[in-house]
């Protein structure tokens, strides 16, 4: 129910009054023309940890993340190319396995687009949250992922 100047593509005028009804206003989030870069919207606030951890009942584990501009360069690691799980998911509509962090907070374990990941970054904690912000400015999609490489304990992330 956007607001705008043209009744053809908006329900409300710039004062949030219905184009077609003289005494009807809408005053809430439904007037938003687009989502925002900031919480709780989607743009620039995307993160997914392409990292799966299976815990049995009562077990605990610590996940250590390292942020890096490149893929893993450890000599013991047959480097996986840095991939963008969002793009891949959009193309194939495959599901993305998302990380333990998100899993803790929601019952959803799959997402098909980055859009669905907005709550993840909100809940994933200030570390990820803050980090993602650093790339908001360029208005490109901020990409972040981390992946545990086989034979290597290092987690690589890219933004």
């Amino acid at each position, binding site marked *: *129910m*956007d*607001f*705008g*100047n043209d*009744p053809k593509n*908006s*329900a409300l005028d*710039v004062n949030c009054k*219905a*184009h*077609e*009804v*003289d*005494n*009807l*206003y*809408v*005053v*809430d*989030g*439904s007037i*938003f*023309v*687009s*989502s*925002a*870069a*900031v*919480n*709780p919207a989607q*743009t620039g606030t995307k993160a997914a940890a392409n990292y799966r951890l299976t815990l049995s009942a009562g077990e605990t584990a610590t996940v250590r993340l390292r*942020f890096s501009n490149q893929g893993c360069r450890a000599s013991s690691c047959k480097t996986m190319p840095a991939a963008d799980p969002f*793009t891949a998911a*959009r193309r194939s509509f495959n599901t993305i396995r998302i990380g333990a962090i998100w899993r803790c907070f929601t019952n959803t374990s799959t997402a098909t*687009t980055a859009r669905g990941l907005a709550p993840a970054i*909100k809940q994933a904690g*200030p*570390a990820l*949250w*803050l*980090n993602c*912000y*650093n790339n*908001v*400015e360029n*208005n490109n*999609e901020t990409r972040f992922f981390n992946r545990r490489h086989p034979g290597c304990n290092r987690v690589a992330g890219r933004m």
Partner: protein
Amino acid sequence: MPIEEGAMANTNHYDIIIIGTGAGGGTLAYRLAPSGKKILLLERGGFVPREKDNWESRAVNVEGKYNTKEIWRDKDGKELHPHTNYYVGGNTKFYGAALFRLRKEDFGEIRHYDGVSPAWPISYEDLEAYYAQAENLYHVHGNRGEDPTEAWASGPYPHPAVSHEPRIQHLHEDFARLGCKPFHVPLGIMLKEGDPRSKCIRCATCDGYPCLVNAKSDAHTCAVEPALDHPNVTLLTDALVSRLETSASGREVTAVHVKRNGVEERYSADIVAVSAGAINSAALLLRSVNEKHPNGLRQ
């Protein structure tokens, strides 16, 4: 003197009816209350009960005690359990108190992989003064200038940023050392650090939980309650608006149909503001179909 039928009907007429008491409707009521206009606030829910469960993660997160039990359906008819709450103050009773301004760029056209995010009909500059007012009303704590993506502002935040927990402070410093620019999230809480009279006690809950000590800046605490101090403002709870009725021409809303405690009621106003939330405002207008508006009041 016998009450005439017309006079009876008039008791249900207001200058302004506001449907919903959350961030939109509650704040609107706060702003309009001093005008002296006769204002009716309609809220489908009641007050969040103040009880120990407010801060119990089992009750709040596992049992979803305060969530609506409504089931919505997606476009394929699949069941959807909305994470939404019907109370005075709306979802702000449960938010994490993060009160960001939109970025300046959000108001313009932005190209994404998936398409174009259209421009708004107004700019950041049009809203800046109102952001400043809202940050005062909602006691926002933050440090202006820390966030490299924030737009210009006419003044500082009304309160200093909430200090980090020790671990977060550690991360903050580590990130800063790496050349990143971590910043304090602007938070709407009534915290006065170091002051034993602080309303906010910095408990271990907040995001997702109602505030047991009413120290979160939600629309109920900051806007609806002060609005109700004005004798011209009336709040009806458990009052669900079923539909809006228009005049024959379709140019004017002439009645607001309400189901209150199971009884159908009818109210009218010179101006009707729908503030039922992004989904429910649209739903209300869509179900208000009539001859002049076969697709609902949306168009």
